[in-house]
């Protein structure tokens, strides 16, 4: 077991200024930490933040929420100190023009979108391009965690997210800005949500992957019992734990219980497959935290 080094702002890290990376600054030929976080000296000398706000960068994939109209843009909340803008041209089809009075017919306040950060200028004006192939619908689940924990949810070479998807049969989309979109059977979505919240809360501890595996395994075991009983079964909720908050988009859409298990499993699995190219997620399997 190896101890990772926690550093605080101002800690001296190295004289090898050529390798100074994120979370550090150079002064008088020395590299110092400017963040409170974990020191990572493998290639570059970096400090991985344990907290802090999400700051959008070009190319990031984010999940945003429409909060206002400012023709010809929608104003989008991206869980950052900075709001982003989505131009009507991004949403319009070929040759179509969207008028100011009809913007809400395409995207209305509180609608959720999956987008890519198209540009960020020096004064932090952020523009998005819409990823039209993804539609977040009422009935889907959305969780928001600190963006600093996202690499931990992905895991080394995508191992953690792979385990979550395979064992739950859910579609899980991880955005760089700390928002996670989940689709699937309601009980599976509940387990995945709890697992994600646990990872986020315990990101800095050891044995986490095991604990998550065990949590998912309990779920699978329960589902086997349900199959045997041939009934919808009673969903067991972990008692008395601070589950934290996570959101259900809307109230009416629920997976119909009469749908056969194997059918829904296959359906979510194929969605998983198309998704597991972790390039979508932005960082694709960055290790630790």
């Amino acid at each position, binding site marked *: *077991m*190896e*101890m*990772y080094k*926690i550093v*605080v*702002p*101002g800690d*001296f890290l190295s004289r090898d200024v050529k390798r100074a990376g994120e*979370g550090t*600054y150079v*002064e008088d030929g020395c590299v*110092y930490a*400017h*963040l*409170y*976080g*974990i020191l990572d000296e493998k290639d570059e000398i970096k400090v991985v*933040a*344990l*907290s*802090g*706000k999400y*700051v959008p960068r070009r190319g990031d994939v984010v999940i945003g929420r429409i909060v206002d109209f400012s023709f010809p843009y929608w104003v989008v909340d991206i869980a950052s*100190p*900075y*709001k982003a803008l989505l131009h009507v041209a991004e949403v319009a089809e070929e040759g179509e023009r969207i008028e100011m009075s009809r913007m809400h017919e395409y995207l209305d306040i509180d609608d959720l979108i999956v987008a890519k950060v198209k540009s960020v200028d*020096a*004064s*932090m004006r952020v523009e998005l391009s819409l990823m039209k192939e993804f539609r977040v619908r009422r009935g889907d689940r959305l969780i928001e965690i600190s963006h*600093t924990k996202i690499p931990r949810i992905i*895991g*080394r070479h995508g*191992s953690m997210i792979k*385990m979550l998807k395979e064992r739950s049969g859910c579609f899980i989309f991880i955005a760089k800005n700390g928002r996670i979109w989940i689709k699937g059977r309601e009980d599976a979505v509940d387990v995945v949500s709890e697992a994600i919240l646990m990872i986020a809360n315990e990101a*800095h*501890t*050891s*044995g*986490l*992957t*095991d604990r998550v*595996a*065990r949590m998912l*395994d309990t779920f699978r075991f329960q589902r086997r019992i349900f199959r045997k009983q041939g009934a919808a079964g009673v969903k067991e909720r972990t008692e008395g734990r601070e589950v934290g908050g996570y959101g259900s988009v809307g109230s009416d859409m629920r997976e119909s219980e009469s749908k056969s298990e194997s059918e829904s499993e296959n359906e979510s699995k194929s969605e998983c497959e198309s998704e597991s190219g972790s390039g979508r997620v932005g960082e694709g399997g960055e*290790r*630790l935290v």
Partner: protein
Amino acid sequence: MKKKGVQLIKDGRRIDGRAFDELRPIRIEVGVLKRADGSCYFELGENKVIAAVYGPRELHPRHIQDAKRAIIQYRYNMAPFSVDERKRPGPDRRSIEISKVSREALEPVIMTEFYPRTTIDVFVEVLQSDAGTRTAGINAASVALADAGIPMRDLVTSVAVGKVDGEIVLDLNAYEDNYGEADMPIAMIVRKNKITMMQMDGKMTKDEIKKALKLAKKACEKIYQLQREALIAKYSEEIEREEQSDEQSAQWLKV
């Protein structure tokens, strides 16, 4: 402020038994509030303060935004029950001045250029006061800023020194502050030997000030270690190598 006939030093010891260069006991807890982005609870003797940081966050109205960097807003406030005679809620002139010099003590280390057009809000509430609250507040705020993930060149550390019964002493308590000859709160960047706050209230000679500053520096070095330790202690759990746990979870899958 200075009362005649009150003996503050007896037989080389201060009225609370401390030596001239002795700090009051310090206790630091990081991340004590749920809603704040970063927080720190700090005790210095009988002082109890809590600092919280929100931000960077959106700043309104727009006309006070800075297009190139974050602005820092610092609010020092005393709870009505924090002092002997109940203090009316709300900022008074003393709190306003303390807020200003405290902000000026911290701002030099904060890398505000990372967050144009935003504000980083620092709030310090004094829950119990025994002189030295502004220094406790700055120490707590430094830690809270780090806890919030704000990029900084360094931590800032603060302590007060002064003159009591002709002697240069460290970290004055309320009695010494009220009846002594001078009180000098300082804030500095320990590693770089730079001063970011310095105020003097009372009367001291140049040599006395030099001696006091030396004393302050030594104390700040100690306090800085405590600030660092508190931050590191928050995440003191061992972090297992991902490789090891990957192997184990692979075995789970086979089963």
